């Protein structure tokens, strides 16, 4: 199992029966593959529907039915379509229970930066700023460090923010952390990972939970 699958599996365990969930592009999208069998969740797609289903079989793509990344998808029985204004009323109005997004940087105050690298890559925020503002719970799914090994979980984000004080949970291949009033709390570590390793790869200060657990993805 690679890091991304491990992260997606751990995040999937956060979902509860009846949740409305919006998954960002990339790693977050993988969460849909690991929803626990005994619960029903509804995926929202910000381009205009509830009831996002899996990719269609080859040859059965519908050009009029795509996800927010323009990939062909399916709709589950009981879904519904709407326009962008309604879509973001649902998002900003607090009707989305969980959003899962990636990060360029995230910090101990719950700040998130994931929409631009100044003077380098500026894709735009898309729906991310509305999602972090409106969703009841914001989960960041990201590899713990950049490809060059630099920490992504910082004392304070340097890149322009997507949202200030918005993140609730950070899940990486090394750790499961929550953002609390007291700071960033290390709640769980991956199997075969030490607290020291997590601390060394994290720029933000970590509060170690009294009942530190091993991340369980089953």
């Amino acid at each position, binding site marked *: 199992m690679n890091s991304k699958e491990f992260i997606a599996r751990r995040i999937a365990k956060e979902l509860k029966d009846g949740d409305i969930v919006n998954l960002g592009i990339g790693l977050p999208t993988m969460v849909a593959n690991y929803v626990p069998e005994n619960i029903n969740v509804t995926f929202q797609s910000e381009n205009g529907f509830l009831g996002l289903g899996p990719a269609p079989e080859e040859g059965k793509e519908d050009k*009029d039915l795509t996800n927010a990344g323009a990939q062909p998808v399916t709709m589950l029985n009981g879904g519904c379509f709407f326009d962008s204004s309604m879509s973001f009323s649902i998002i900003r109005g607090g009707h989305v229970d969980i959003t899962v997004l990636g990060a360029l940087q995230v910090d101990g105050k719950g700040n998130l930066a994931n929409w631009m690298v100044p003077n380098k890559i500026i894709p735009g925020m898309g729906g991310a*700023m509305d999602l972090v503002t409106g969703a009841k719970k914001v989960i960041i799914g990201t590899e713990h460090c950049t490809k060059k090994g630099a920490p992504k979980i910082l004392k304070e984000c340097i890149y322009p923010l997507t949202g200030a004080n918005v993140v609730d949970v950070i899940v990486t291949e090394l750790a499961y952390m929550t953002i609390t009033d007291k700071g960033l709390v290390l709640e769980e570590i991956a199997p075969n990972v030490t607290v020291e390793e997590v601390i060394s790869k994290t720029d933000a200060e970590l509060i170690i939970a009294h009942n530190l657990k091993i991340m369980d993805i089953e």
Partner: protein
Amino acid sequence: MSKIISYEKAVDKIKDGMTIMVGGFLGVGSPHNLIDTIFKSNIKDLTIIANDTAFPEIGVGKLVVNRQVKKVITSHIGTNKETGRQMSAGELEVVLVPQGTLAEQIRAGGAGLGGFLTPTGIGTIVEEGKQKITIDGKDYLLELPLRADVAILGGSIVDKKGNVFYNKTTRNFNPLMAMSSDTVIVEAEKIVEIGEIDPHLVMTPGELVDYIVGGGK
């Protein structure tokens, strides 16, 4: 008088320097033949309002590549590298707006509202230059309405009066833009007789549509 006109006649309504809203989400629900007709024309210096700049070879992104655009108001340009390149080179003005705010600005422009208060963007650079208003202890940004000279939209089924049905995820920004533009042009996949669309499935009232093109399918 029929609202159905040729692509060329429709594109004649668009003049250099105008502000144009373009429906679609990464090209899905966009008026592709209208875009191609603009692409082939000499129209330039457009301000484009659209969810995204789609792809270099698909959707409104083609107009960026073809240097017909001087300014874009949009939420996402990541799928069209040429937008980013022109922006970095100072050749194109790009205003990046959170997607929900963009949708709401376009809605407000069509709904006669002077603006709205959104929590989106608080604590970010989106705040810059905007009035902040506190209601019940919570901060909001005052965002202003957007309007355009012309909207070009992609309709799935359009009746001869202009009533539009947008299929599945092709709806997105299309019905909002139909409300907030002085002239509204819909490219139809299919044109039907008046009354053939269930009145509950009409997502843009025909009264708001000025011209219909296409329907060849």
